[in-house]
């Protein structure tokens, strides 16, 4: 019996421990806490509003859906566009109308109803081996060209970044052509899809393959890291499809939770994240392209040059999200 009492007491104490302060904001984040926290810390310093960040790689939308009207979440941060749309589809967001947000974020990077706002852009680049290929004017379509057989590396096709790329191929070429393309890419792979974008760059350096798919900021972060710099320096960054539609772009973003207990402060945080200080921090800390037009990317990112980005409306990517996953399974891309 003593044990039971002990357990009960400890249990109750731990409930007490987790009780949440009323005025604090709660952010559910798909993005790693170490990326988000330095920026949020500045918000707290400036406004005195405390913020708790809960990081989860998966399942945040599910969690908010379950929590329903009792959900403590105020704001959701995502690293990918499809997650934003998923939140809207499940009716977990609430619209925000703020002139500040509308001024800061260009119209193609926010929902017409204000259900979500993008924060940064990330380009799906092609990296080529500096010594073996050098800079290439390539297209995503050429990845399926038999002349690159055994030369291409990528992470899992099921990663949101690749799903979005496949979705954009479906949007531009239709499902049947996208499938042929995907089969061609699979046939050209040097190895089974694995690792993350950084791992693909390392594979190029080691000669496993000559061309790798990867988001721009991974390359930037590698160049900043003294231990990984040598690896990143073995590749050239290329912006695909510059001669036609432009490079595929995905966005990270934010959405106000539908049952946010603290909407006013949450909107303040959203505005802060869209403003110069935070946008600059995103650019400098994580090497991403800020959405706010007058905030310059970091000098390193800027040194990769101007590029043309795919003007396909971002919501199209969401439309073909499911079709893209099905296609990836059909061609058994990861197997």
């Amino acid at each position, binding site marked *: 019996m003593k*044990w*039971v009492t*002990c*357990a009960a007491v*400890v*249990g109750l104490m*731990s*409930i007490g*421990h*987790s*009780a*949440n302060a009323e005025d604090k904001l*709660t952010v559910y984040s798909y993005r*790693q*806490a*170490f990326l988000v926290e330095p920026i949020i810390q500045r918000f707290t310093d400036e406004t005195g509003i405390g913020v*708790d960040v*809960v*990081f*989860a*790689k*998966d*399942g945040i939308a*599910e*969690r908010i859906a*379950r*929590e*329903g009207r*009792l*959900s*403590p979440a105020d704001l959701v941060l995502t690293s990918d566009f499809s997650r934003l749309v*998923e939140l809207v589809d499940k009716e977990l967001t609430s619209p925000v109308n703020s002139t500040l947000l509308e001024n800061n974020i260009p119209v193609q990077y926010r929902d017409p109803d204000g259900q979500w706002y993008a924060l940064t852009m990330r380009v799906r680049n092609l990296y080529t081996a500096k010594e073996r290929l050098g800079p290439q004017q390539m297209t995503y379509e050429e990845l399926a060209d038999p002349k690159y057989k055994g030369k291409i590396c990528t992470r*899992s096709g*099921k990663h949101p970044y690749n*799903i979005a790329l496949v979705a954009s191929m479906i949007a531009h070429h239709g499902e049947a052509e996208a499938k042929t393309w995907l089969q061609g890419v699979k046939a050209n792979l*040097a*190895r*089974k*899809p*694995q*690792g*993350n974008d*950084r*791992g693909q760059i*390392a*594979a190029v*350096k*080691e*000669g*496993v393959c000559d061309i790798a798919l990867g988001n721009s900021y991974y390359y930037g972060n590698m160049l900043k890291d003294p*231990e990984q710099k040598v*690896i990143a320096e073995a590749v050239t960054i290329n912006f695909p499809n510059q001669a036609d539609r432009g490079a595929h772009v995905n966005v990270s973003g934010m959405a106000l939770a539908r049952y946010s207990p603290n909407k006013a402060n949450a909107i303040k945080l959203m505005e802060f994240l869209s403003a110069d200080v935070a946008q600059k921090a995103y650019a400098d800390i994580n090497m991403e392209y800020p959405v706010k037009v007058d905030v310059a990317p970091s000098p390193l990112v800027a040194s990769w040059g101007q590029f043309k980005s795919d003007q396909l409306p971002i919501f199209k990517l969401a439309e073909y999200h*499911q079709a893209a*996953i*099905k296609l990836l*399974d*059909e061609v*058994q891309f*990861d*197997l």
Partner: protein
Amino acid sequence: MILGLARSWSLAGYTVAALLVLPLFALILQALQPDEAIFSHLLATVLPTYIRNSLLLILGVSLGALLLAIPCAWLTARCEFVGRRYLQWALLLPLAMPGYIVAYVYTDLLDYAGPVQRSLRLIFGWSSPQDYFFPDIRTLGGAICMLSLVLFPYIYLLARTAFMEQSLSLAHASRIMGCSPWQSFWRLSLPMARPALAVGVALVAMETAADFATVSYFAVPTLTTAVYDTWLGYGNLAAAAKLSAIILLVVFSLIGFERFARRKQQLFQKQSRIQATDLYPLTTVQTAVALGFCGTLLFVAFVLPFSILLSYAISYFEQSWDGRFWQLSINSLSLALITSLICCLIALLLMFVRRSSPRPSDALPSRLASTGYALPGTVLAIGVLVPLTMLDFAINDLADVFGIKGPGLILTGSVVALIFAFCVRFVAIAIGSVENSYKRISPSLDMVSLTMGQSPRQLLWRVHFPLLAKGLFAGALLVFIEGMKELPAALLLRPIGFENLATYVFQFVSDEKLEHGALAAIVIVLVGLVPLIYLNRSLEQHS
């Protein structure tokens, strides 16, 4: 068996078990929902590969872990050789390593871009992957190796205890009857240890079925990765629940098969202690082989990955030292402690009911309660959230009726959900451990104490408990270590602002930057080591 055991005992058992299967029940309900033909699409495309990979992985890891564990257990329990006393506890060390960290470290080491292949290329002048053959670590085989390395101590621990507690007179008798030491091992010790081995293999199989981090890192698609995919990629919970049901089916049929094969065995033996003088002395050559085997295993499964972690931690110390370490460690520790305490109490209750009840159906609660272990953490998290959220809403609605301000999410928003999930997942370890210890308590003891007028409760506390203490303690420590390492459930269920070591490390692993989280990973391992050493000490003192 107590013929007149009050029904309240059974009722208590069933209540606890019902609570523990609640998440599973919620999942089955989900699985029955329509899934918009996602499941049939999967079946037509990738599911056969997933199922094949899962089966091969579970069988491979079970076999691999057995092959690694049995020699070690036998050598350290029954033979005398130099270094035995150290190996005895050192072989438990790999248990403190989370599988995905070992996988990460080895991938770094053995990948094409890793130092091993790089230096091979340098030495032999190869320049491309076509020039030579090197086994690819990111394969099914690689995953089987990694998981066997971190999971074999489960079997080792249970098998060693079984070997140590085997009555020596039987061994002597077999030798007098003309068995060679090998024959005595094959025909006597091994079959007698089979219940313990079975429990160990079952734990390993379930742990393997639930593994997500390692296989996803290795890009080996299994049913568990498919569950993630379907739930989070296709956004379809019903199809995901259907896949989870297949996983459970696979695991349960494996366990059921083993139980069926063993159905006619009944093993009870007197507790006996193996004295130092009873150990079988090894010759020099034999010692060398024994040391070589155990030593290599220890090096590969623990020493090497740990030293690599250590070197990461040292070279990235400045970037990764964080004032929150104490808080993270305390969170991890208290969570694991509470979980192991509750799991032990539950295991004790359920197994006592099973043993003492005259009603055969009372074996059911302990069986049911063990099912949670096979649930992958994310799946379990969904299963836990469904009933607890309903309860949360009920509480708040009730508060509304009385005009009080509702307390909010007091269950799903607090550590309660987390502790509940951990208990559902790990109670099987405690139950297995207690079950195993019960097998070694002769039923005649129960009869004696009942004849002497002891009540069932007295029988439990005064007779069974002291005899089970060792098994219970071992179970508690295993649950504790698992609680320190468990990740997916912690990620999804933790209350706001709650971070423990595992979730902290994972954010770096998920970004393939373990170097920055190595310090925290080392803390997980070190905190896991303390109970391991303790566990071994307690086993030592008894033997």
